[in-house]
């Protein structure tokens, strides 16, 4: 009787574990099912590389949104990656451990602030500054890049710190013994040893930036065009979905799901790259 109970428990647990997995499959299935037929019917090339997005005329080219998403993500990287990696190095190598243990969770709190609040700060504080100093509408590629750059900081800092701290202390001691300064040790030994973890943190930040929706809708301006300068208003893939989903029907709705398919594929590629980078680090250990 007891033996049977154990077996039943094992079964039940196994089923729950796979039902967690089935969540992912369901998501993929439903998004693909709604989006893929449209892509094939409309034509992959026309969908991805045409600049005409006129849903009421039945024209669905998402090229401007793809370009905008790439630029915004690149901008976020330029703002967030150095700031985050520098911060992580400072906190793990130049800060007393107890102080770091207070500051790290404080920075992780940045991740808990809802994205709509970041967007709001972008609208109320950042956009007016950009408008006053550089001209243009303020709500722009530049504003979105800066806000997203800030939003990815906790991801980059937190994962980078973990990977820098995972470098064995003996590496550093060896370097000090040769007479190196802290900075020489940091850039010649520690950073080299934790490189793949730092890269993984940046890739995960990239994934967060490209998938962010609400903050971007609020600060990027949302006009469908290929930006010429950072001060132009842009619409990203995510913003395109969220802006039009509430009233889209028929082909238009399918086109938005197809936009979701593109986004999903990009994100899964990025996450696989990050997990490869993380695994490489673990193998090296």
């Amino acid at each position: 009787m007891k033996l049977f109970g154990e077996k039943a428990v094992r079964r039940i647990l196994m089923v729950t574990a796979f039902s967690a997995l089935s969540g992912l499959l369901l998501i993929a299935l439903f998004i693909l099912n709604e989006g893929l037929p449209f892509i094939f019917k409309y034509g992959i090339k026309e969908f991805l590389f045409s600049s005409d997005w006129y849903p009421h005329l039945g024209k669905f080219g998402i090229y401007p949104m793809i370009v905008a998403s790439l630029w915004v993500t690149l901008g976020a990287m330029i703002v967030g990656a150095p700031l985050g990696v520098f911060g992580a190095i400072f906190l793990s190598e130049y800060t007393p451990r107890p102080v770091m243990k207070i500051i790290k969770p404080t920075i992780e709190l940045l991740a808990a602030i809802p994205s709509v609040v970041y967007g709001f700060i972008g609208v109320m504080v950042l956009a007016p500054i950009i408008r006053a100093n550089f001209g243009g509408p303020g709500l722009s590629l530049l504003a979105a890049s800066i806000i997203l750059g800030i939003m990815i900081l906790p991801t980059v800092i937190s994962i980078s710190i973990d990977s820098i701290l995972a470098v064995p202390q003996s590496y550093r001691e060896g370097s000090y013994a040769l007479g190196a300064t802290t900075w020489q040790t940091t850039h010649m030994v520690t950073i080299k040893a934790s490189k793949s973890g730092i890269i993984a943190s940046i890739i995960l930040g990239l994934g967060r930036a490209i998938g962010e929706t609400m903050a971007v809708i609020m600060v990027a301006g949302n006009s469908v065009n290929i930006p010429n300068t950072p001060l132009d208003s842009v619409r990203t893939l995510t913003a395109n979905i969220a802006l039009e989903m509430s009233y889209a029907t028929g082909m238009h709705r399918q086109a938005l799901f197809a936009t979701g398919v593109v986004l999903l594929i990009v994100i899964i590629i990025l996450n696989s790259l990050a997990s490869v980078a993380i695994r490489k680090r673990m193998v090296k250990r």
Partner: protein
Amino acid sequence: MRIHPRYTQRGAVVILGGATLLTLVILIFIIVFILEKGLPVLGWNFLTSNPEDMGRSGGIFPTLIGTIILPLIAIIIATPLGVFTSVYLSEYTKETRATKIIRFGTDCLAGIPSIIFGLFGYIFFVITLGMGWSLLAGGLTLAVMILPTIIRTSEEAIRAVPKSYREVSFSLGASSWQTVKKVILPNALPGIVTGVMLSIGRSIGETAAVIFTAGSSLRIPTSLLDSARTMSVHFYILAREGISAENAYGTAAALIIAVLLVNLSAYWLMNRFISKRS
């Protein structure tokens, strides 16, 4: 020309320290800015009265209800699923192909942006299962979204339970399930609760996944199949449609305070958990 190591050292400290300082200043600025503008609006009356004129005046009471119920539904569903999954992964199997697939799946799930959850929840719960824009559809969507967090934190908490505890339990003749129930889960509980709290925090702040699944009705919901608006959605609508800056700040302050409270208590719990361990 070679710069003396003493100067590169000083330069590095200044630049790295500056980056850290800037990050902290940004964080503090965001919180102080919102609280400074929002706290004067935020009061008991604001929290407990109904919005009037689409939120131009009045309070945020219905959105407060939505903000409490949606995360509640999400954790009621996701917690048992997530905890059992992590028990299975850490106690019942060795690293096999199956566990690798499950882990890859939850990792993928963790990286999916919330707008995709919104699309999925809309087409699956709202349309296919016919729930309409409702608390239930929104809660289920959030449950799928927070599942990876709960699985990962629970698994860490379970793995942190010392091996000797299990061995003692087994040596007393306990079965695997008895060991899980009587020894492992009680010891891992604070870690599991931390994961749940972090998930609540994320659910409270979520907008994209909620707006397409729970809708944005300003009425007080009377059943799980009623549409409801959360504070984040309300804040988004107030801010984006320029309805009322004053009430937007008030709602944002309420939102930030809620999220900070939930996250700080999660950290407090985690620290207690870690100090008990060592």
